[in-house]
């Protein structure tokens, strides 16, 4: 390895190589606004994940599993969808038209009805207690599948509020597999090269640093220097993709389609991060915990989710990415059928719905059902452990064959007494 070789030359040759591929494959919904990087991702067909987290608990009765005109059904009507016999709440008119693209599992029954314990528990797959803190699904995928060829951080998180590095998501896997959060879609601190530093200077000094590191690491254990090199390189790659974070440059038409609100904007940034090649993109929306005034609140909440979700599915499909992107939309539980005094619904892990699409998923399938009242699951119930098995399989990972290695302690990647949910995988 020649330590003084210029990384710019590599980037250039990649682009040249892709020159012919570029934008031809991606027209339609994006109107020719596809970046060259999309071509690369398409060519690689690397599996990715879009994980939409509706924090607080979206009501299944006001979205995916309505029970209109029943004791607990609430005020809204249901509407027919593209799937015969399947209805969703009147609050989701756009997704109703796209039901053939997604798979609903309406028979979720999970263990925890609190947020502070429940959110991490769900996102960690609620495995058997082995005395370790399991990683969030994003961290697990980051470790098992690594970054894509793009070199971008494998687990990124677009969320309102603060950003930065969230190492605790990774549990026993170690902080390296934590989430890199873009608070309000903004890149992390110290992201941009200061104005006083020219790109040429930056390149030159980094080459020198690499050269010194190479000499240092030669006779020693390689691991530390490799890790160090990796994070410095990632910083550089992020910088090269900085246009993703400049939302002022996004076309207004796109912003309108996703919705000029937090979830819409963040979903759009999430899509761009997927295109750029982040392995696992988590998009968060907060404020779904409607213990009060639920039936007014849910109107704007579900409507905005409907808009953003439909838009991103449409775009992923148009570029061909949906085939190799696993899409998940969920909360930590559903909401109670019982309506409380504050005209709200409380937490309900007993019977709720998770929506899936994309890579390995049986589009247009509705798996499981709740009873006529919408109170409990009728028939087979599924826990989050089943979901994890299903997700891993959809990504081509076999939970029976693949394990985590926690410093010599082998650990199953999903609850070892559960399995795939029948009917969900394509």
């Amino acid at each position, binding site marked *: 390895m020649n330590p003084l070789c210029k990384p710019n030359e590599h980037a250039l040759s990649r682009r040249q190589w892709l020159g012919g591929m570029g934008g031809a494959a991606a027209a339609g919904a994006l109107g020719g606004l596809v970046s060259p990087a999309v071509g690369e991702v398409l060519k690689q067909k690397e599996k990715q994940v879009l994980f939409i987290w509706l924090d*607080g608990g979206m009501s299944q009765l006001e979205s995916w599993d309505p029970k*209109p*005109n029943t*004791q*607990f*059904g*609430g*005020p*809204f*009507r249901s509407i027919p969808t593209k799937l015969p016999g399947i209805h969703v709440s*009147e609050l989701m008119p756009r997704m109703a038209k796209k039901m053939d693209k997604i798979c609903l599992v309406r028979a979720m029954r999970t263990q925890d*009805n*609190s947020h502070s314990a429940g959110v991490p528990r769900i996102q960690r797959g609620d495995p058997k207690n082995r005395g370790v803190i399991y990683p969030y699904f994003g961290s697990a995928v980051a470790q098992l599948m690594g970054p894509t060829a793009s070199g971008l951080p494998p687990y990124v998180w677009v969320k*309102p509020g603060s950003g930065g590095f969230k190492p605790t998501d990774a549990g026993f896997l170690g902080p390296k597999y934590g989430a890199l959060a873009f608070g309000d879609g903004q890149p992390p601190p110290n992201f941009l090269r200061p104005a006083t530093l020219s790109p040429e200077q930056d390149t030159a000094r980094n080459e020198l640093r690499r050269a010194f590191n190479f000499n240092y690491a030669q006779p020693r254990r390689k691991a530390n220097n490799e890790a160090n090199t990796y994070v410095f390189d990632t910083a550089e790659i992020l910088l090269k993709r900085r246009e993703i974070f400049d939302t002022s440059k996004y076309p207004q038409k796109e912003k309108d389609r996703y919705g000029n*609100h*937090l*979830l819409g904007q963040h979903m759009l940034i999430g899509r761009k991060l997927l295109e750029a090649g982040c392995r696992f993109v988590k998009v968060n*929306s*907060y*404020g*779904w*915990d*409607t*213990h*009060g*005034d639920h039936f*007014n*609140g849910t*109107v*704007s*909440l579900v409507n*905005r989710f409907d808009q953003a979700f439909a838009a991103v599915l449409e775009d992923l499909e148009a570029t061909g990415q949906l085939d190799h992107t696993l899409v998940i939309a969920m909360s930590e539980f559903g909401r*109670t*059928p*019982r*309506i*409380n*005094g*504050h*005209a*709200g619904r*409380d*937490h*309900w*892990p*007993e019977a709720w719905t998770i929506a899936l699409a994309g890579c390995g998923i049986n589009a247009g399938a509705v798996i499981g059902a709740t009873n006529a*009242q919408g*109170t*409990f699951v009728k028939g087979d119930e599924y826990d989050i452990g089943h979901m994890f098995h299903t997700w891993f399989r959809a990504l081509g990972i076999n939970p029976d064959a693949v394990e985590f290695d926690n410093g010599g302690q082998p650990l199953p990647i999903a609850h070892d007494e559960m399995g795939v949910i029948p009917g969900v995988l394509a």
Partner: protein
Amino acid sequence: MADPKKEPKQLQILESERQLLCTRFSPDGTHLIAGGMDAQVHRWHRAEVAPEKEGDEKKIEWQPLPNLAGHHAWVGAMGFHPKAKHIFTGDSWGQLRCTDYEGQKLKVHWSQKTAHDGWLRQIAVSKKHLATVGRDGAVRLWSHAGKRIAEWKGAEEIFAVTFQPDGQRVVFGDAKGVVRVWNFTTKIIEREFTLNEFYKLARIQDVCGLTRLVFLEDGKTLLAVGCAPTDGGTMQGIPTLDWLDYATGKSTQRYQFGVENDVFITDVAWHPKGYLLCATSGVTGRGTTFFIRPGEKEPFYSSTKIANIHALALHPDHQHFTLTSTSRGSNGNGRRLDKEGNYSGNTSPVHVFELPA
């Protein structure tokens, strides 16, 4: 409030098997009607009951009558015909109906299945017309016979509606707190003013605080009732009454009651003795009844005994009122089954009070 003689006296609690929404006395004072979350219109009538002891006065009791069926989902809007013994009811699927409210054989005089596309939120009645508003952003004017006369449509959900006392204009307020005065003859919006405090965007939730618009003093003062939202999710906000000078739309007095957990003033009634009866519903377990005179800084009566009050009805005799509350312990996460192992819903007890002399 130490003097029990000055306190309203509770006379009766009316039970229902389901939760109730709007509640009103008929203009002749003989019936109490409430719309339910069970697609039904609930009724009670005023009955004289023989006294327990001979020589005592006869007791007045409100006794249940069979419900009226035929609506869907939630019956949250109602208004009484000014002359006939009819009631107009609206539901959350958008249906508007005119039915008898008295007697056993209850006739449906007319029904408009799609009076609104979805949730019909409020009904206002004048001498000649009725006006309805809904989630579809429309205001519609109807004759008492059910014929649609005029319509206005906007982008936002409309929550509150009332007629100008002379019946010539419809005044309505939307999700963003914009109040408009509609001349339904010329079809023009003559005035509009925005009550900013009744709306907040909390993350991606439009938190809408306006619940009612009520005219006072023969049309000079418009009272805006509801909540100044502080947060979405569980929803928090401060119960708010805004006295507006109707001519200018400017606030002459604003009264805010309580703290963020008290949330909404859900219903009000004007007492001819010169005060407002108000009821609030906040987070589960919180609710207040208070009486306040315009111009005064504090209510002269308030009580937190009854929580989560969703309707307050003043009897035409001005001596009685009801509070439609919610059963105790109505909230709770996760599976909570009753003694028989069933998952049961909440109810709305209706408390009947007598006002002090």
